[in-house]
């Protein structure tokens, strides 16, 4: 996942989890065992450790902070309910993420009509892209188009891009969470990007990569 040595191209930073909770690690401190023995402090520690990635997933899918918090609570209440069945030899994060995505899609489907894109979230994200006002406007429009495109993706593809491009999980980790194999995960990402690319109008595509165009002097 690290940029190759000597490559002149700018590497897209993919695969580095920014939550500090890698998926594949075991739980050496026996947190799950302590929860299973009825230790509520351990459950609080468990919650604090995993709340952020779970909440992020819920928020990225639902785009509603209140609904995301509700799903976060549901997810951990369920974890407590089935604590005796949680595996102690692997991280519970894939399981939590799986429960979270399932809860999200059951809720979003139920209240699909009421879920509206929050454009307020979009407005503050592109100010650092470039100092040119016309490019800022262009980027905002692109981001807005992409937001709508993400919302329109099928749930499995949406989950794939959230796990891979937002959380930065590896293909194997994303596949484990989504309960599919790596090839299927690659395929979902491929079709998701293809669909998103098709959402961008031609002129937007051109302006989208105007500032990130690869030039021949960047190549080795």
């Amino acid at each position, binding site marked *: *996942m*690290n940029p*190759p040595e000597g*490559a002149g*191209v700018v*590497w*897209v930073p*993919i695969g580095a989890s920014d939550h500090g909770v890698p998926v594949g690690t075991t739980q050496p401190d026996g947190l799950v065992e302590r929860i299973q023995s009825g230790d*509520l402090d351990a*459950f*609080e520690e468990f*919650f*604090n450790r995993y*709340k*952020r990635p779970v*909440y*992020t997933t819920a*928020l*990225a899918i639902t785009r509603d*902070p209140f609904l*995301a*918090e509700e799903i*976060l*609570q549901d997810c*951990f*209440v369920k974890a*407590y*309910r089935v604590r005796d069945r949680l595996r102690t030899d692997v991280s519970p994060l894939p399981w939590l993420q799986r429960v979270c995505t399932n809860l999200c899609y059951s809720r979003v489907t139920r209240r699909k009509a009421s879920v509206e894109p929050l454009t307020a*979230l*979009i407005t*503050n*994200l*592109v100010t650092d*892209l470039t100092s040119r006002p016309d490019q800022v406007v262009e*980027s905002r429009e*692109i*981001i807005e188009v*992409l*937001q709508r495109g*993400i919302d329109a993706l099928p749930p499995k593809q949406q989950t794939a*891009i*959230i796990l891979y*491009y*937002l959380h930065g999980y590896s*293909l194997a980790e994303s596949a484990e969470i989504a309960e599919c194999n790596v090839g299927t995960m*690659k395929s979902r990402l*491929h079709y998701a*990007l293809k669909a*998103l*690319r098709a959402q961008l109008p031609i002129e937007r*595509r051109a302006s*989208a*990569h105007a500032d*990130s*165009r*690869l*030039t*021949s002097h960047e*190549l*080795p």
Partner: protein
Amino acid sequence: MSCRRVSRELIERFRFGEELDSRSAPHLAHLADCATCREEVGLERSLVLQLQRALRARIAGQDPSPRAFNAVRIRALAEEEQVTWRSRLFRIARLMPAGAAMALMLAAVVNVAGDRQPTLLQARTVAWPGVMERADNDPLTPHEVAWWLVYQPPPPIPPPATGVMPSADPSTRGLATLPKPATGLTE
């Protein structure tokens, strides 16, 4: 190397963050000479960058509330309590057939025993057959009357005859005098 192949393979590597190695040298050489492929690969890279920005925008500045764990704890414990009650009920429900069977058996035993010997009330009624009332002066129930008729004790044995014969005439009650023995004397 064709543009199509270069684009496809390089785009896939960019898309999945795979490292470029010595096998990528021909692709990069082609890219250096081909503006169309550079455009195509650059577009893909831009799309991924914009996608990541769009995804981060969805979660920007949002965190779970500080009260979230408290809510989770309350709900989890309440649910556990509910589950405990449900499991208790389930356990009771599982025992119900056995309880019902035991009750039926008990009823059958009592019924059989009741057929063989009188209950206390019935015994008391038998002891005083002439009294067709219970001790509390309530009239007997039809069941008690029926039982009394069935289990009516036998009539008392009459005392031995001592010169007094019972009257053959049913209209005369009490004792009748025996006929005098013949003595051959005329009155």
